[in-house]
Every structure is written in structure tokens, then in C-alpha cells.
């Protein structure tokens, strides 16, 4: 066991997978000599060489498209996009090719690609460097979408993502990169995609979240003094409906927390599924604590925009008292 940050846990997962499987090739802007914009791939260029840790031009569509070609031919590319805002230039390749190749070829060709993307706000960055676009990709059949909220989960989920036969977008919450350390086994282990984690058990209220806000939820729960069940989705698509439903039926009160804007955010999908499966169990309307329906603001206002513990605490009070 080692006490690792989320960055270190991902770095370790990459090293172990690359040593296990020489089909794995990393591509991205400044990931090689420079170790990546967030230093996630630090040391890998030296360890595995320029052939396997490939510094690419600044060209997101080209990086993702080339990675798809590599995957179609049987390799296991793990490209990095520097910030989630830069997914926009690669959107065509992700949705036109990565997500559809198995379907378009009806099983003949597959794209075992893991696209690593730092995501979300909270690091004093501007817009396009602080967004939460996971709902765009969850809406597209054919890709899986993962977002860990802890170093332990990051390692296990990344290994699962790399070994998955389908394309996975692996969102890494920047705010958690170095926020805290956690015991992470040095041996390899996997955490299955599509399975949520029950962070704290409780019977008064359920909170559902993923990524960086999970930490804010934990703080809010601690201040509330209530028995609250916190679910960290870990995988956004496939969504672990069963874990959500079990908890909502138990507590009858649900708060959903995410950084992305509220309108058409994943909170809406989750609330809808709860309505389909738990209507007669609910004691209160479901509340969503989210980013606002506007562009992610500059850093002076970002903590107003993000779902911080105080706003979550207020929702807990309202839903519990309803």
C-alpha cells in the first residue's frame, strides 16, 4: 500500500498497464517530455520511450481520430486531451467514429480506446478549462463515461477502462488531482465499470453525486448531523440504476449534486429514473444542486457556481424537512 494522490494513482495505473500490455500507447499534447499539463504522465516518456508515449501536435480531432484508427487495428491507445473544453474539436471523432464503430460495423470492428480528460472547476481556471461536459457523452450510445472521486477508485477504474473492449471517456476531476491522499494498493486491481460506490450509509436521505462534488457532499453530510446515504456513481454511463433505486426506496428523499448546468444535466435523467422506479416511496420532491444554466464563470465567481457544501447543506435541510 502507498499513500497516493489521484494523480499518482493514475500514473501508477498507466505504468502497470503499459508493462502488462505492449499494445497500450499513450498520445497527447505535451504528455511525453513534459509529463502532461497536470504531470499525470510524469516519468512515462523516460520509462517507455517516445514510441509508446507520443507527443502529438496540438490537434484534438487528429489525436482522437488517430487513436481510433490505432484501436480499430487492434491496439489499445490511451490518448489525453488537456482540458475538457478541448473535447469540442474532437467531438466529431468521438461521436461519429469511436462511439459508433462497433455498431456501424455490426461487431466487426471495435474501438478499445480510453480517452483521459481532466474535468471540472475549482482550480482557478477560466471557462473551457473548468467545464463538466459528461452529459454530452452519456447521451451518445456506444461510449462509456467514467469519473472517479478518489485515488483508490481512479486506479481501479482506469485499469478497467483500459481493458474494456469499448471506448471509454475517463474524466479526471482536476480539483481532486492533489486534494488528498489515500491508501492505494501497489498490486493491480480493477473496479467494475457501471457499479456505484456507497460512500456513507444512511436512512434519512440519499445524495447522489460523482467527481469533485463528492467531497463537498461529504463535508455537507458531516455538518448536517443526519443519517445520509451518499452514492458516488463512479461510472456515469452505464448508470448503476439499481444502487440508486435501492437507496431512494430506503430513504424516500433524494438530493442530486453535479457541477454541470442543471438544464438537461444528468440530474434530470437520474431524477426521472427514480420517478419511474420509486414513485410511491418518495417523501419529498427530488432536489438538484448543480452549476447554473450559464457559462462557467471566471475564477473569482467559480465557487459561487460550483455546488459547494453550503448549498448542498441547504438542500439537505429542505428535502429532509419536507
Amino acid at each position, binding site marked *: 500500500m502507498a499513500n497516493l494522490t489521484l494523480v499518482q494513482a493514475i500514473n501508477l495505473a498507466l505504468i502497470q498497464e503499459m508493462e502488462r500490455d*505492449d*499494445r497500450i*500507447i499513450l498520445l497527447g499534447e505535451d504528455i511525453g517530455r513534459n509529463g502532461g499539463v497536470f504531470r499525470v504522465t510524469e516519468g512515462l516518456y523516460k520509462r517507455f520511450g517516445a*514510441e*509508446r508515449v*507520443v507527443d*502529438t*501536435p496540438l*490537434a484534438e*480531432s*487528429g*489525436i*482522437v*481520430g*488517430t*487513436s*481510433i*484508427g*490505432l*484501436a*480499430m*487495428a*487492434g*491496439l489499445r*491507445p490511451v490518448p489525453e486531451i488537456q482540458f475538457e473544453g478541448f473535447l469540442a*474539436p474532437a467531438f*466529431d*471523432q468521438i461521436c*461519429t*467514429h469511436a462511439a459508433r464503430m*462497433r*455498431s*456501424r*460495423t*455490426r*461487431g*466487426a*470492428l*471495435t474501438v478499445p480506446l480510453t480517452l483521459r480528460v481532466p474535468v471540472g472547476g475549482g482550480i482557478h481556471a477560466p471557462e473551457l478549462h473548468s467545464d463538466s461536459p459528461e452529459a454530452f457523452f452519456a447521451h451518445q*450510445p*456506444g461510449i*462509456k463515461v467514467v469519473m472517479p472521486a478518489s485515488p483508490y477508485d481512479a486506479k481501479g477504474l482506469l485499469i478497467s477502462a483500459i481493458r*474494456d*473492449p*469499448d471506448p471509454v471517456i475517463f474524466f479526471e476531476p482536476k480539483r481532486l488531482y492533489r486534494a488528498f491522499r489515500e491508501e492505494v494498493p501497489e498490486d493491480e486491481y480493477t473496479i467494475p465499470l*457501471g457499479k456505484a460506490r456507497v460512500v456513507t450509509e444512511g436512512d434519512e436521505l440519499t445524495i447522489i453525486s460523482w467527481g469533485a462534488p463528492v467531497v463537498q457532499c461529504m463535508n455537507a453530510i458531516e455538518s448536517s448531523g443526519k443519517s445520509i446515504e451518499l452514492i458516488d456513481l463512479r461510472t456515469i454511463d*452505464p448508470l448503476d440504476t439499481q444502487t440508486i433505486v435501492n437507496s431512494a426506496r430506503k430513504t424516500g428523499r433524494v438530493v442530486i449534486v453535479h457541477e454541470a448546468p442543471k438544464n438537461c444535466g444528468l440530474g434530470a435523467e437520474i431524477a426521472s429514473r427514480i420517478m419511474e422506479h420509486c414513485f410511491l416511496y418518495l417523501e419529498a420532491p427530488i432536489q438538484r444542486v448543480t452549476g447554473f444554466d450559464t457559462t462557467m464563470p471566471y475564477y473569482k465567481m467559480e465557487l459561487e457556481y460550483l455546488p459547494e457544501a453550503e448549498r448542498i447543506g441547504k438542500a439537505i435541510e429542505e428535502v429532509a424537512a419536507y
Partner: protein
Amino acid sequence: MTTRPAADENLAAKLPDETLRKWLRDMLLIREFEVRTMQAYQNRLIGGFCHIYVGQEAVAVGALAALEPTDPIITAYRDHGHALARGMDPKYCMAEMFGRIGGCAKGKGGSMHMFDKPHHMYGGHGIVGAQCPLAAGLAFARKYTDEVIENRASTGVAMCFLGDGALNQGAFHEAMNLAGVLHLPVIYVVENNGYAMGTSVARGTTMAHELTAKAAAYGIDATSLDGMDVMEVYNGMKPIVDRCRRSVQPAFVEARTYRYKGHSMSDPRKYRTKDEEQQYEAQDPIEKLAGFLMSERKFAEADYDSLAKAVRTQVREARQWTDLSPPPDIEELYTDVYADAWGPYHGTSLPLMMKDTQQE
């Protein structure tokens, strides 16, 4: 970067009779297939959209002849010709158009879905130019597998076909730059048929009179050749393929060609004249090769007729096979979206074509 002459010598003229006859047969097959496809589309037996390759046959046949059969190829949506020239049995191609389970993509994709993994044909893609980075990746994969996994010299070349309209897409330029910077053995073959849908190449792109200029900024060798003559295509392409393979570098080729039919089946062709169409049809690639074989290789009218008859029979049989193949079951909607079965998804399987190939 150099712009090379189209061909130094007539390599095709030195090839044996059977090779040139095969080219003629392939071009005849594509034309017969496309004519029957058009008829079926007009009779509403084929849906979706349909882009016909008639007139451009020499490009696919001549260019693929310069490759090894294991070199990966990829193209955009005008893809039936490339699939047939690569060796796809026309029955799988026809069944795909008709939306039958026997199609190469289980009849769930149609005209733009010509995939043939056993023949290293990677599609068939619907977004103009977006296949270009994929081709860079296919080339990269061959190079990486040889050099890093197998620890030997790179042996492969990937070929990416695109239309002149794709020259204006960002993905093309990103791919060219990546191929140049990463030394990828990929050949971008622009089939310049003069029109991006209804917009002439001169109205749609800069340096239209010299498309090889597009490659100059990327330091990529470029060649322009006559795409209406299969022997010229081969003569130009063979040295390029050999050079790319040997030096592990990309190349860019413009093949000047013409599509006799509209962009798609519903194109009124207001952007060009009947005279222009007739001028190109008068230099037909099939007639040209047949003429060469007759004057130089003791090829008789009767030989031509027997080839033409053979491909008519082959396409008729493909059509009959298609008629016997049922449409996909409704269950197929949720098959092949993901490998695993979860939620509504049933997991994945292989198209009949690949099951057939595996049994062989």
C-alpha cells in the same frame, strides 16, 4: 516536398495478361453492380442514400493494385467500388444496400457501411474528411506493431481515399500534419471528380488548379495523375506505395476523375453541362483498358463479352442471394452497441460475412 511526375515508366504495360484482365473484370463488376444498384434504388428497393462510383472505377482498381492485400484501406461514403475492388463478395455488398441481415454490416447501415475486416477494408464513412485521421491511426498501428511489438522494420502502408470536398475539412489537415510529424506510412488519395456535391472544386478550395500544393505545407510528397486510366493510376501509384513502405513516410496523390452520375441519387446536376459529361464519358476507363488489351494483348471482342457476361451473372446472383436474406430482427437494434450485455443491450456478434470467412 516534391511534386513528382505522374509516372516514370509504363509499369502496367509489363504486367501479365491475367493481371490486366482482372483489372478489367473488376471495373466491369463495379460498373454493373452500380448500374443495378441505381435501378434498385429507383425502384425503392434500397433506402438511405446512395452514392454511385460509375466513372471513377480506374482509381480504386489501379490504386489498390499497387498495394499488398493486407495493407489497410479506408474511404468515405462513395465506397462500393473500393469494397468490390478489395475483394468483397458483391452479395454482401448488395445485401447491405437492401438492408438484409446477410449484408457486410448486417443490413443495418446501407450504402456508406462497406466494411470488410478480412480484406483489411476499414469502411465506408459518412462524415466528409473525418476518415483521414483514422487512416493515420491505421498506418500508425502497422508501424507500431512492426517496430515496437514485433521489433522489426515497418512493413505496411495505409491508403485513405477522400473526395476533393474533403480537402476543405479540418480533419484532413490535422491528419496530414500528424502523418508528416509522426512519419506515418499513409497515402492520401484525393479522388478529384471536379465537384463537392454541387460545388465545383474551383469554387470550393484554394489552389484548385494545383491541388498538390495542399501537401506542400506538410512537407509531404505529392503527385497528380490521370484517374480515368487504370494503367496510369497504377504507374503513378506503384512507385509511391513502394517509397512510402520503404521510407515510412506519407504521400499525397490527386487522381483526376469524373463521376458520370450525380452526387447522390437525387441530384439534378444543374452545376454542370451535358457536354461536359459526354466529354468525360468519351474517355471511359473501361473502354480504354479494353482497347489496350485488344490492340496489345490478343484480347478479342468475344473475350470482352464473356467478361461482361460473367459479371452480369455475378451481380444477378448477388441480387438473388440478397432476396433470400431476411431483414434484421428487431432484436438487432440493441446488438453491437457495446461488447457487454447490460441495460437494454444484448452484447455483440459478427456479421455473417465474417462467420463465413472464419469457416473457410
